[in-house]
């Protein structure tokens, strides 16, 4: 396939036309889905009404669009992009299409600490005590994600890092987190349990601008940094010996990239809860669409944003009761993972 080389000063990237096409197409589709998201809901709006509401603060629908639907849609898109980017990095490093931040303990570590916070503070999440829900939950989630990621990474480290060991250790640690999470749920009041359950399923209900900002910031900083690291990521797939010979410091660059992936997933989880399977499926879909050897980072992010926004549209409008978006992504994503495993057998 023809590639174009982009050079800025001493740095160079290879651009694959197909990859660019997938990214641009993904962004366009995302725009379309977000526009649909603006229109649909309890109050249906026409396109001119949405445009009017966006720019005219006196319009009746201004509040609905600018304070309810737009921040929610943006949170969904950004969280999807961050999760997919995180998944693409981890899959490249683990050299395993089946790896993802949820298997590496990041999202589950976050869930455990958040549930602990909700249970410990009594009737907490959902706005009852403001400080905890605006600051505490995201902070706990970030901390839990980092702890979970560090635990899996540390336990899987044995004279270097083996992709398969990483995945298996992740499955073991995740199992403990899951059990502790459910034990915590039995400790709390059933009403709190219900709220915690919505959160740990991954939900975009009632997300405001305060949920948009941290993910936007994390993406703004980490996306360029991870793109800078693509070169070493490309090299890492050839195995440690070859990579060292190519002049890449394997363990250092791998550790930095994993750190970026963990941060992205943890911040995304802080904003929307652990939305399942986006991080796993999006890079694989992007890889197939772009026909590249490794999950392409930018295209994965675009696909992740499209998936999450689409799933939220379904979760919001297709059922009599609004479901958490994470349930929709799990029901769509798990069969996809099973399909990947089925194919990998051959």
């Amino acid at each position, binding site marked *: 396939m023809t590639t174009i080389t982009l050079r800025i000063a001493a740095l160079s990237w290879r651009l694959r036309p197909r990859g660019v096409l997938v990214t641009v197409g993904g962004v366009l589709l995302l725009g379309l889905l977000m526009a649909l998201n603006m229109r649909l809901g309890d109050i249906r709006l026409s396109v001119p009404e949405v445009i009017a509401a966006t720019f005219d603060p006196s319009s009746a629908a201004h509040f609905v669009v600018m304070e309810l639907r737009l921040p929610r849609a943006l949170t969904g898109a950004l969280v999807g992009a961050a999760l997919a980017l995180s998944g693409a990095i981890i899959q490249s490093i683990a050299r395993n299409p089946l790896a993802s931040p949820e298997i590496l303990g990041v999202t589950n570590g976050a869930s455990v600490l958040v549930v602990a916070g909700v249970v410990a503070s009594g009737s907490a999440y959902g706005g009852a005590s403001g400080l905890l829900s605006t600051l505490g939950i995201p902070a706990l989630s970030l901390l839990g994600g980092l702890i979970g990621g560090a635990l899996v990474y540390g336990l899987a480290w044995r004279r270097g890092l083996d992709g*398969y060991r990483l995945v298996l*250790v992740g499955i073991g640690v995740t199992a403990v987190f899951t059990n502790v999470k459910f034990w915590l749920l039995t400790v709390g009041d059933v009403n709190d349990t219900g709220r915690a*359950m919505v959160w740990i399923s991954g939900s975009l209900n009632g997300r405001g601008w305060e949920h948009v900002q941290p993910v936007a910031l994390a993406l703004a900083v980490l996306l360029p940094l991870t793109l800078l690291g693509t070169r070493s990521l490309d090299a890492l797939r050839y195995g440690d010996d070859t990579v060292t010979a190519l002049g890449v410091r394997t363990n250092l660059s791998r550790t930095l990239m994993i750190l970026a992936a963990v941060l992205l997933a943890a911040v995304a989880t802080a904003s929307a809860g652990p939305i399942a399977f986006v991080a796993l499926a999006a890079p694989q879909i992007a890889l197939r669409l772009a026909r590249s050897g490794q999950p392409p980072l930018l295209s994965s992010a675009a696909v992740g944003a499209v998936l999450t926004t689409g799933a939220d549209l379904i979760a919001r409008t297709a059922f009599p009761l609004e479901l958490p978006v994470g349930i929709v992504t799990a029901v769509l*994503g798990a069969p996809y993972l099973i399909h990947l495993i089925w194919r990998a057998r051959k």
Partner: protein
Amino acid sequence: MRSTAVAPSPHGIRHRRLLVLLGLLAGLLLAVALSITLGSKPVPLADAWHALTAPSGTEHDIIIRSLRVPRTVLGVLAGLALGVAGALMQGHTRNPLADPGLLGVTQGAAFAMVASIILLGASSVLAYIWFGLAGALVASVAVFALGMTGGRGGPTPVTLALAGTAVSALLYALTSALVLLDEQAMDVFRFWQAGSIAARGSDVVWQVLPFILAGLVLALVNAPALNALSLGEDVARGLGQNIAMTRAVGVAAVTLLSGASVAACGALAFVGLIVPHLVRPLSGTDHRWLLPFSGLVGAVLLLVADVLGRVVAPPGELEVGVVLALIGAPFFIALVRRRKPVRL
């Protein structure tokens, strides 16, 4: 073993296995005694014996007869069932990481039971145990299909563990969608998901007993054929084995054992995973010994974990499922770290 020059005689092996069997039975007896006497209200052994043989309605008698005995019996049954089910799954999938909890069988039973509670109004264990069994059956067949087809190569332990994760995640998502709609089911589900053998009456024990007994019998019947199968399907076929039949009996046994224990106790992971690894050095790879030993060790492990959960945080209790995960996961991780993922 027999091919090496210094192998012990068959007679010596049998002698050693009988000794191990006696040791395990003694261990189980000790665990039962601990489980009956220890708890938030310790009961002296003499009082416990008195309560069992000649009850006179004292406080200790009531505690022992209505709480501790059903709990202990259920622990023994579930431990037997899960230990044997784990050994069977590892034997059939030839995969050292197979476990009913990790491979999605538990979540299959959970989904079917929650669905029956919400959609059909099932309320007693007897009503939803059938649904639990049906769910466990579907999930076992799915996992076995993923785990055993693929000819000579077969899936690696990683692939199978991931398949289990995927199946579990799907079923879990469906289950949580259902419980989010129904607060009453949520209240049942959260306790169930944590996994516990406490506060189950003796009626629950009687209801799951036939299923577990049937499963144990099927497992033992399956053992010789499984030995032949572990030489490879071609060899087993050459020896006159009916492969499909052997597999079918194995799936049926796993379904009965894990489905029944899951219906009664909730999600108890890691028993089936750990136990066969502990037992193999004692029993060798002969499933006629591996299976019963796994059952006994499973029962001891479950009771000890339950007792630990009772005494670590008085006056409260830690659910046995949580204790098992805290014991089991380090074991799992050590297993994974020790070497590259192996095939059995």
